[in-house]
């Protein structure tokens, strides 16, 4: 997935004209509203549909009715969707800026492979069987691979190409291991095939509490990186000339992306495409300024994730489709549409 990045990521340093800034601000507000709507829909819609009053009742006047129990269950699922979606979108946006590659996503740096390999190890060799039990393994796997990629990529001298190559290499080796284990251990395959598509159905309060601190730290770190990453986007030399600290920015970005994506993957499994597509789509609206891309990606990614989750609950009633499948089924065509719409000169 290593491609010359087109010259579209030139960050603009000049402030946008007031009208455009107003439009972007309003757009951000509208996005928040959409997110709120989707969140409510995520609580109301499912195998058993709830009316808005029932949702209200369950959220604020919980008396333990059947509806209230359903709301409780869907609430933790919705909260996890919000958190994981935001984390995936944010880490994707940071990685795309860091590697100057509009196609970078957590998969490119091997984080998904790391989490998957760790989970399969947990199942086969440590006998872990509960979804909450996977979380620490998955997070540790993603973090270890993140560190390894950073180290192999040349740490301080890391360049976008080297990071991508290191990530691809480690993924390749780890997927070989993953397949070998699954072929020889049928029980592991039985569990892994559900884990690898990515799902929000594992959501419990304890899962959320496990990953919450990491998500909080990662989000703050990532949002604070907008300005230095804007400089990095213009190329190493220009960034240096502008006085940006390249090494520190790279190290912190890698850290933020790993923590965010690792925590999200640990809680829901590897969910495809959110981290790749949302920042990509956002950029076509906001332009290359990360100070806008990052907030937009943070708000719109959970819209995609929760929306996909709702769709997955509706289309296959009474059972449900995993959210990772739906995000790819929605995201794939949209992505191709975006690719086709762009003029050749920009590609």
């Amino acid at each position: 997935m290593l491609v010359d990045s087109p010259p579209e990521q030139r960050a603009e340093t000049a402030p946008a004209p007031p009208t455009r800034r107003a439009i972007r601000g309003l757009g951000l507000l509208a996005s928040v509203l959409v997110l709120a709507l989707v969140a409510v829909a995520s609580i109301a819609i499912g195998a058993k549909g709830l009316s808005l009053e029932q949702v209200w009742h369950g959220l604020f006047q919980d008396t333990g009715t059947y509806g209230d129990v359903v709301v409780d269950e869907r609430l933790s699922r919705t909260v996890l969707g919000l958190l994981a979606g935001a984390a995936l979108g944010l880490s994707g946006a940071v990685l795309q800026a860091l590697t100057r590659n509009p196609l970078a996503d957590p998969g490119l740096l091997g984080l998904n492979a790391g989490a998957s390999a760790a989970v399969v190890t947990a199942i086969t060799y440590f006998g872990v069987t509960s979804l909450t039990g996977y979380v620490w393994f998955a997070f540790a796997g993603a973090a270890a691979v993140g560190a390894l990629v950073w180290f192999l990529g040349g740490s301080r001298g890391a360049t976008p190409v080297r990071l991508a190559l290191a990530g691809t290499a480690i993924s390749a080796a780890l997927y070989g291991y993953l397949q070998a284990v699954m072929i020889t251990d049928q029980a592991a395959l039985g569990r892994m095939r559900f884990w690898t598509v990515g799902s929000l159905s594992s959501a419990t309060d304890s899962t959320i509490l496990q990953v919450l601190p990491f998500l909080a730290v990662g989000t703050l770190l990532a949002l604070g990186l907008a300005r230095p990453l804007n400089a990095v986007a213009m190329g190493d030399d220009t960034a240096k000339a502008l006085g940006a600290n390249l090494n520190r920015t790279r190290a912190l970005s890698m850290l933020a992306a790993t923590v965010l994506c690792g925590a999200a993957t640990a809680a829901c499994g590897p969910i495809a495409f959110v981290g790749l597509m949302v920042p990509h789509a956002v950029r076509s609206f906001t332009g290359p300024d990360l100070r806008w891309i990052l907030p937009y990606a943070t708000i719109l990614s959970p819209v995609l994730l929760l929306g996909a989750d709702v769709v997955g609950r509706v289309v296959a009633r009474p059972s449900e489709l995993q959210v990772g499948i739906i995000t790819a089924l929605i995201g794939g065509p949209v992505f191709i549409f975006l690719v086709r719409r762009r003029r050749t000169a920009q590609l």
Partner: protein
Amino acid sequence: MKSNRVLRTPGGLSLRLDVRAVTVVVLLLLAAFAASVVLIGTGDFPIPAGDVVKTLFGNGDAGQEFIVNELRLPRVLVGLLVGASLGLGGALFQAVTRNPLGSPDVLGLGQGATAGALVMIVLFSGSAAQVTLGALVGGLVTGLAIYLLAWKQGVHGYRLVLVGIGVSAIVTAVNGYLLTVSDIVDATRALVWMTGSLNGRDWDQVWPLLAVCAVLVPLVLVNARGLRMMEMGDDVSNALGVRVERVRALLMVAAVLLTATATAAAGPVGFVALTAPQLARRLTRSPGPNLLASLCMGAALLVTADWASQRAFGADQLPVGVVTGVLGGVYLLWLLVTERRAGRI
């Protein structure tokens, strides 16, 4: 430095040969043959290499003849042909997309074939032949879809990669879904198929592969000169009289057919298409797509990997795809270290 030899006839015909490239091709063919002989000799009844060669040329005893010609030779031939097709297909993809990572895996052809095979395995519990057919159809449909979706007054290499990534994400989701709804026996069968395996391949798989290679390999090699020009950019090659769009379309179709047939026969064996052209290029040290060398490299690589997996894990314990996957990772890491030393990345 370059070592070109030119052969000329009085009638004005001339052939230009790169001595180093020719040497590399010959050595790789020898290596592939040697690995095949060793692989045929490997198994529950080991046969010494000398006997294998004797049997192959028709002078073996009856028992060995059965084991060699009926049981093990077809598997090795499938390995050679699949490796050759993947090596050539990979070289074509990399040349057309002008991207060293532009392999059929990235473009989603492997996933497309997998989807076809999974539909057969999971939904219809199909026979081996049906699975092969499903994979073939899946790969071809995916290849066609990617090409059509990427078409916009011509196909641009970068857009092709992007569309391929989008398509492959969709198909991967479908595959994930199929795995979750299958029962565990089918899931295991599907997983072995998805890893890429030569286990149990017989003459039925050899003939279609051989036919496809016999038609496509010469066709591709005839157009190789145009492809070589296209390395210099569309404008230069157009100016030199290459019909860029036509050559590109033709070679893409050939690459898709080669990859899809190979995948249908052995499953999406990872990384052969990616690494074979790169290794070939490093051996020949020659610019250009190095089609023939990539083809031989793919064949030698896959048979060697199959032998390694049998030696390391015992007969038919692990499919060859596991070994090529790990080898691919090691290769990329090696690339990372050496290229860094050379100061190129």
